[in-house]
């Protein structure tokens, strides 16, 4: 309906107003846009073939006019590799975050809303995932499943939902105590209806902010896994580039052009997600508003 759309627009407008004034959020958004464009449009302009090895002279060749970011240990163009890696790093980060968000939100809402024994059981289970050392678990899982890009997405998703579940559960508990939940029960609404129609929309802003922060962690995770040799060799991400850089001793040769760009890109993407998540948290979390 027309009016409902107007309301949505008004709500979105209020949010955008505060967002635009948030310098950190805007910086994050601009940075993220840059990387997204790089991931989407970049490979079209500068296609990359991981098998396109150079001749002996090209190995660790420093930046030149032809190869703006120099060449790597196999003589491949670093800039092209970097652009191709953006697509992989970002997809892994975002897809694994989706898994984590869906699982965490579902478990958090169900546990928080149901309460009682279900809650205790689910939270004990969550706690296990929360205390299990995260990187070793991922490494072992990756070793069990084998290192394909889809397995990496799955592994990161499966190991990162616990924090989201905790946050969502805590928020669900406070929303559950609000009287409109009781009112919904009084008019005859069922549990499923209440969870989807009343709890979820009120938990969502926090889920959203949290999800963005989880994306940051997911991208770091992917990079680290790949760096430690669990990456998918067919889909070289930034982490894989760093893996090759380290293995080939780029640091001791001083091949900074091979070492710095992928790392800076990771920092840039992660930072943009962190900025965004932090800004959303500040806008959406009433307790953090300026006193």
């Amino acid at each position: 309906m027309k009016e409902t759309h107007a309301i949505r627009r008004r709500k979105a407008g209020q949010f955008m107003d505060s967002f635009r004034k948030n310098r950190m959020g805007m910086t994050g958004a601009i940075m993220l846009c840059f990387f997204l464009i790089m991931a989407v449009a970049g490979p079209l302009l500068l296609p990359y073939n991981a098998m396109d090895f150079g001749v002996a002279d090209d190995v660790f060749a420093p930046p030149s006019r032809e190869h703006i970011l120099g060449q790597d240990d196999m003589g491949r163009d670093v800039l092209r590799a970097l652009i191709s890696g953006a697509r992989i790093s970002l997809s892994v980060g975002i897809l694994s975050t989706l898994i984590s968000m869906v699982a965490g939100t579902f478990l958090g809402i169900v546990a928080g809303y149901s309460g009682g024994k279900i809650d205790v059981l689910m939270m004990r289970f969550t706690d296990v995932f929360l205390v299990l050392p995260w990187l070793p678990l991922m490494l072992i899982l990756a070793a069990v499943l084998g290192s394909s890009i889809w397995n990496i997405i799955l592994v990161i998703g499966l190991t990162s939902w616990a924090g989201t579940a905790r946050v969502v559960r805590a928020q669900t508990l406070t929303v559950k105590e609000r009287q409109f939940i009781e009112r919904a029960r009084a008019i005859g609404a069922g549990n499923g209806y209440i969870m989807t129609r009343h709890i979820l929309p009120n938990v969502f802003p926090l889920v959203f902010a949290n999800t963005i922060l989880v994306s940051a962690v997911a991208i770091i995770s992917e990079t680290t896994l790949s760096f430690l040799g669990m990456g998918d060799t067919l889909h070289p991400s930034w982490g894989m580039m760093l893996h090759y850089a380290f293995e080939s001793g780029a640091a001791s040769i001083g091949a900074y052009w091979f070492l710095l760009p992928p790392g800076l890109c990771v920092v840039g993407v992660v930072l943009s997600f962190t900025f965004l998540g932090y800004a959303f948290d500040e806008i959406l979390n009433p307790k953090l508003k300026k006193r």
Partner: protein
Amino acid sequence: MKSVMEASALHVHFKARGSFIQEIFSNHQKKVKAVDGVNIQIGEGEIFSLVGESGSGKTTVGKALLALEHKTSGSILFNGEEIPSGTGKSSRRFRQKAQMIFQDPYQSLNPRDIVLDIVGEPLVVNNLIKTSAEKRERVIEALGWAGLRPQEEYLYRLPHELSGGQRQRVAIAAALILNPQFIVADEPVSMLDVSIRADILRLMVEMRDRLGISYLFITHDLSLAWLISDRIAIMYLGKIMEIGSSELIVGSSLHPYTQALISVMPLPRVTKNKKRLILKGETPDPIDLPVGCRFNPRCPVVQDICRRQEPELAEVTPGHQVACHFPKKLLVGAP
């Protein structure tokens, strides 16, 4: 008078959060007897008030009557039939006939929904409408009953764009839209500014007069109960201490607790030198109820028997029941 809602020997007990060892190893769990044997009948078109301090169990009674809280024992009859629990078809039908108005209009409306959706929600949840035009029409009608005119101006507003009084009217409209027979109003004005309390109370009375709705009015404020209700019950620690018409309760109460409550009630008068019956201490924890009369540790006229035997609610004059071994007037005269 035909009774619409009738509860007898109603008990609602909660599990007390005992210590960890007890919870695991002991099968004897402590209980909070929030409602501990309450009998009330609410007649057609009657406004019945349940007055008590926090922890008296008055809200729990209200929720139990609407099956929003599981009763431990006792019976609750609505139009002569035991109220359904669960979410079956009969439960749906009951929900449509018995509604609730909540205390805090800032908390009882979903902040992300517009008025149209809030007020129309009971219709949607119970599959009572087919088209959104029908919903809009019914919502406009209900907003009119609740005195929100012109209705179109409110339809697309969010709760935070309304004043406290308007929000409470929206909540009332949402309760009225199903044409209920019985409404539990839980402290409906305690969060509102004094200057708009009267509007909400007047609206409740008006709906009773026009539509014959019966109310259970839950309040801590005896003077408001006196103002609008036909009968008043005074609750203390899960039990009714005294019950009678509002004039009787306020004018010639016989239970020491009621009299103490009345004596400390703030009035729009100069009462600096008024004689007051200020009870010592605070309402004790309902986990460990005192033996005998549950009011005895704070009673100004306690006797030996009060510490041994619990007095039952007994009729002193027709329509006036008191649960006290020594019902009598303690203070004489208005300020």
